[in-house]
Structures are given as C-alpha cells and as structure tokens.
C-alpha cells in the first residue's frame, strides 16, 4: 500500500477500492480525499466502482435466494442421525467420504493387479495388509521417488488440473496433479493420479525441503477418466474418497490456490 499517492489506472482502482472498503489508513484516506476534490475523473471512477457493489447486491439479493428445504431441515434437525442426508429429497448427495483416515496407513501389500504402480515406485517394500481389513485396495508406500521418476517430474512441474505426459517406456501414460497442500508435519504435498486409461493409481506424495518426493499413500483405480476441455476429470468414486479422507486428515489449513502452487512449482523448478 505504499505508492498510494501517484498513479492512475489499476493502481488508482486499488486505492479507490480500498477506500470504499475503509481499508486505507487515515493518511492514505485523507490524501485520496484531497485528490477526489480536484479530480473529476477520479470521482467518476469512484462512483462507477461503488455502483458495481450496488448492482451486485441487487443481482444477488439475499431475500431472493432460495435454500432448499431439505438442507434447512438438516440443520434444524436435533439428532445427528439426520445429518446423513440420505433422505434429502431432490438434492443430489455428494459421495460420502467413507471411513475417516486420521493417520497415515500402515504400509499395506501391493496388490498383484497393480504391477504398474509397483513399477512406478522405486524401492517400495511389500509389507502387511492394512490392519482394519476394510480398505483392501488401499496401498501405502514408504518409498521415495527417484528424482527422474515420472511422478516426481510431474509433481515438480505440472499445475493441478493439468496432465504431464510420461515419456520413455511408459509413454502414453499420464500423471495428473489434483491438489496441493501443506501437511501438518510441514511437508509440501500433492494429490495426484497416474497411469493409463485402463489402470491408474491415485495418491498423495510429499516432500520436505530438499528431500525427494515420497509417496505416502496411494490407491489403485480403474483407469484415468478422460479430461474435459477445462482440464478436469470426474473423480472415480470410492478410490478418490479414500484419498480425500487421507488428505483431510493430514492437511494443515487449506489447499493451496493456483498462485501459491505456482510459486512452489517455480521454486521446485529452480532447484533442479
């Protein structure tokens, strides 16, 4: 907010906008008010910006917004059982996130059917099945990824919502970062999908400072869904929700937005 005293165009809009919201300090506000007294164009711009807010509040009038009765009923209900929402008429329920995973899983056996995934993970050690027996297809790896591993390369370079084309022997396969976040242990983590249209994995890999990417958890999937024009794929049901539960459990705060992620990606690229 320095440079508040000389500018036009975008910077001018910044100041006017902050002025409208009462977010300028007293000196800045006084300086802007002095300019407004002598600058008719600036005054007109302020009126235009104020009119934007007014028009928006008219177009999204709270009184006219309808909240579905089924959702109101969920909130009004006194017993937690009704929270399930299965009886919500006319509203499509979101896929329920099945079981809560609050801790990283004990490494589980790598299912024979997902040789592809085993191939992806350098040095991952087969171990015992998941203790709860409930998530047979959930696979956890303790192994790090080699720096030139396709998943590591993709996680270092590819924004979420985009696809990284694997080269070499696995050409034709893709790695698709889905979401980036910081874990409660401080590591930078990304959820991703990798594989082909027929076989895939969905998982979370993390890295701490200068260490290598390590896959913390992954689940086998039935293949990547085709991407739409906007770069979004339909998440595949149960597999995705297991990973989503894991993410929920280890995420510190919010997922990174596009800008924060881009910052990390460019940082990662600079290291290499």
């Amino acid at each position, binding site marked *: *907010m320095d440079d508040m005293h000389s500018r036009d165009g*975008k910077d001018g*809009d*910044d100041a*006017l*906008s*902050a002025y409208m*919201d009462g*977010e300028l300090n007293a000196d800045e506000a006084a300086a802007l008010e002095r300019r407004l007294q002598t600058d008719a164009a600036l005054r007109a711009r302020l*009126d*235009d*910006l*104020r*009119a*934007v*807010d*007014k*028009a*928006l*509040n*008219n*177009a*999204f*009038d*709270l*009184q*006219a*917004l*309808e*909240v*579905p009765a*089924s*959702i*109101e009923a*969920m*909130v*009004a209900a*006194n017993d*937690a059982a009704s*929270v399930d*929402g299965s009886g*919500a008429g006319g*509203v*499509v329920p*979101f896929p329920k996130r099945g079981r809560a995973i*609050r801790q990283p899983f004990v490494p589980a056996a790598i299912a024979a059917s997902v040789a592809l995934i085993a191939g992806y993970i350098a040095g991952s050690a087969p171990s015992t099945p998941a203790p709860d027996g409930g998530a047979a297809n959930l696979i956890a790896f303790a192994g790090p990824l080699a720096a030139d591993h396709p998943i590591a390369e993709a996680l270092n370079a590819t924004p979420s919502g985009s696809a990284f084309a694997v080269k070499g022997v696995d050409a034709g396969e893709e790695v698709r970062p*889905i*979401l980036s976040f910081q874990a409660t242990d401080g590591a930078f983590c990304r959820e991703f999908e990798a594989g082909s249209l027929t076989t895939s994995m969905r998982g979370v890999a993390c890295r701490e400072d200068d260490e290598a990417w390590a896959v913390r958890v992954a689940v086998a999937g039935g293949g990547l869904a085709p991407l739409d024009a*906007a770069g*979004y*794929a339909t*998440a595949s049901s149960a597999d*995705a929700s297991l990973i989503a539960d894991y*993410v929920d459990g280890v995420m510190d705060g*919010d*997922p990174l*937005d*596009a*800008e*924060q992620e881009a910052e990390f990606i460019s940082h990662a690229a600079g290291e290499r």
Partner: protein
Amino acid sequence: MVTNTSVNRSALLETLPRLKRFCLVLTRRSEDADDLLQATVERLLSKGVPPDADLNKWAFRVCRNIWIDEVRSRNVRRATPIDEAPEPNPLDGECAAMARASLTEVRGALESLPEEQREAICLVAMEGYSYKEAAEIMNAPIGTVMSRLSRARAALADALADAPLPT
C-alpha cells in the same frame, strides 16, 4: 485438525442464505450451488466448528475448501449462466450506468471473472468482510485480496459501463 464440537444450529440456519450466495458465486449454477451447500452443511454438522472460531467465517472456509478440493475435481464446472435470477428490484433514482444494468448482465459479467476475483468480491462487497477476514477465508495475503477485489470491481465497471440502458 478439527475435533468434534457442537454447531450452533440456529446461527447456521441464519447464515444459510449467505452461504448459498457464496456457493452460487463459486459454482455459477444453481444446482451445483445446492450440492456444494449441502456438502458444506454436512461437513459442518459432522465435524463441528472449533469453539473459538466464528461460525460464519468457518462455514465460508469449509465451503471454499470443499469447492476447491472436491467439487471442482468432479467436473461440475459448466459455463452456463446462474439460473436463479431473482425478480428485479426497483432501483432508486441516483444510479450510475452500472446500477441500471440488468440483473442478468450483472450476473453474466461476474461469471466471466476468474474464480479468485469472484470469491473476493463476494466476501467483501456482498458479505462485508474486512480484507483481513477475507484473507483468512481465502488463505491468501491481504494484498492479494485487495488486488483481486480491485481488479474485479474494475472489470465489472468496465463491462457494465457499456451495457445498454433499459428503455
């Protein structure tokens, strides 16, 4: 990590229309907005709200996270207009060109903005959050909120300055 705590249900009930509006601004479609709203309410009721958190702010954060994390990856983004335009309200006399633009034009112009800008202008210009509060909800620096908001207002002002006046 949020531990299970109770939710003030009557306060949540009151904030539902505001949450719905935020959902509408994020998703740009009424059905998707209701889906997102329901998912948000389910999450709030099942996981609770930390005792020291402001319910409204917390609810907006949860809503936004679900949108980023879950809904968007389910490919609910469609470039179809928001289809729940309310009845036009009579506007008072001293309006600038902008305020005379039709509700459809206003909504269309908002929909054409990037998500980050839509979110910022909803939180500040409609919900009345301070930049600091909006920054907390959006998990972004205050300066970023300020510039997103300013760009959003400028783009809307420019888009609607040329809007034809109603006859």
